[in-house]
């Protein structure tokens, strides 16, 4: 339980995310094999492994850490997740400015900025069976939680993202590689929505 989060807290959260990605690599690969090109788990793992190698010199502020994550993901991920997560972390970094300690309020703002960035980059709308279907509900839940506690905000976001990811199962993909499958994309969870939910769960676990 915490009302604020320093640069060390952000670094710890990113390490937690990297561990989660590593742990769920095969699951994401398998989800992506069903309706995509099968590289999502491996791409994200490569990206966050590269992030880990840079976290010993993370910078002075939470914004600097988030920007480091962004540029590393952009340069190393390869698939759509690179520019999408890269943009999300980049916008989150801009949103928190030069704050040395993040508050629940600034985290809500960062999540909202990340969502706007992903929507601008990928042009996906809710219901297109993409990571927007997890991140959108997560942002809404974080905003509605109205809590001053970081763990409570992130926990609400993670729960909504998880439900959002589950809700992509019956959807027909309208964006991304899965959209080439048309109706055949229904019946599978979107790997991007799943990884978004995993990332938010890792952030929530790190804060609790």
């Amino acid at each position, binding site marked *: 339980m915490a009302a604020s989060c320093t640069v060390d807290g952000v670094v710890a959260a990113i390490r937690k995310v990297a561990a989660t990605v590593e742990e769920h690599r095969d699951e994401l690969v398998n989800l992506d094999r069903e309706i995509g090109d099968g590289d999502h788990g491996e791409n994200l793992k490569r990206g966050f492994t590269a992030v880990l190698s840079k976290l010993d010199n993370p910078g002075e502020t939470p914004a600097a850490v988030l920007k480091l994550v962004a540029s590393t993901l952009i340069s190393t991920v390869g698939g759509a997740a690179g520019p999408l997560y890269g943009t999300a972390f980049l916008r989150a970094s801009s949103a928190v400015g030069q704050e040395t300690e993040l508050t629940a309020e600034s985290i809500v703002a960062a999540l909202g900025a990340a969502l706007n960035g992903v929507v601008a980059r*990928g042009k996906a709308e809710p219901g297109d069976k993409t990571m927007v279907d997890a991140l959108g509900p997560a942002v809404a839940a974080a905003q509605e939680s109205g809590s001053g506690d970081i763990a409570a905000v992130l926990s609400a976001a993670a729960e909504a993202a998880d439900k959002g990811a589950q809700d992509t199962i019956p959807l027909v993909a309208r964006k*991304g590689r899965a959209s080439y499958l048309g109706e055949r994309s229904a019946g599978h969870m979107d790997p991007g929505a799943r990884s978004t939910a995993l990332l938010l769960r890792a952030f929530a676990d790190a804060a609790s």
Partner: protein
Amino acid sequence: MTRVGLVLVSHSAKLAEGLADLAGQMAPDVTIRAAGGMPDGGLGTDFDAVSAALDEAQQGAGVVILYDLGSAKMTAELAVEMLGDPNTAVVADAPFVEGAVAAAVAAQGEADMDRVLTAAVTSGAAHGESPEPVSSGAEEFVLTNDVGLHARPAALLARTVAELNAKVILRFAGKQADAASVLALMGLGARGGDRVEVSATGPDAREALQRVGDLISRGFDE
């Protein structure tokens, strides 16, 4: 004059390089850079490679980027946003192969960045649909070279037309093609000895007819 450069972003190194060869064949003076695949040789789009290609292709007249699939587009857009001046490059929503060839030919003809972009994005519709009304006279010419409107002659013709402010349409065997599109011209299937009808609209229509007529009569200098 500096020409607009091209960057071809693909998930596959082979695809990007092959397309650079293909487009370069028709545009010898255009800087075309392939940015395909990941550094380890795998499939994917490499942001750093795209950014480097963007720098290399920039000759001062701008860069048009073509991409193969969705995430390549996102990588390309991100690379443009991160340029010192994002107005010096543009991502074309165009068919990858046809768009690259059309853009290369337009760039070879010293078209500016907007016109190269237009050449790319309109390339997909180039086959058979050119419903422009004819406002100048139409003339008929007999193709005197053996191969007719094959790749090199078609590229020469498109280049000749690109320099002028005129829309030029060729008609043959019930089909029509915009002369700005190499692929549409080749799609006419006109061979040596065939008779094609040429019409032009726009301020330079007369000049365009004249130049196209000269080019055909010279047998495309073959």
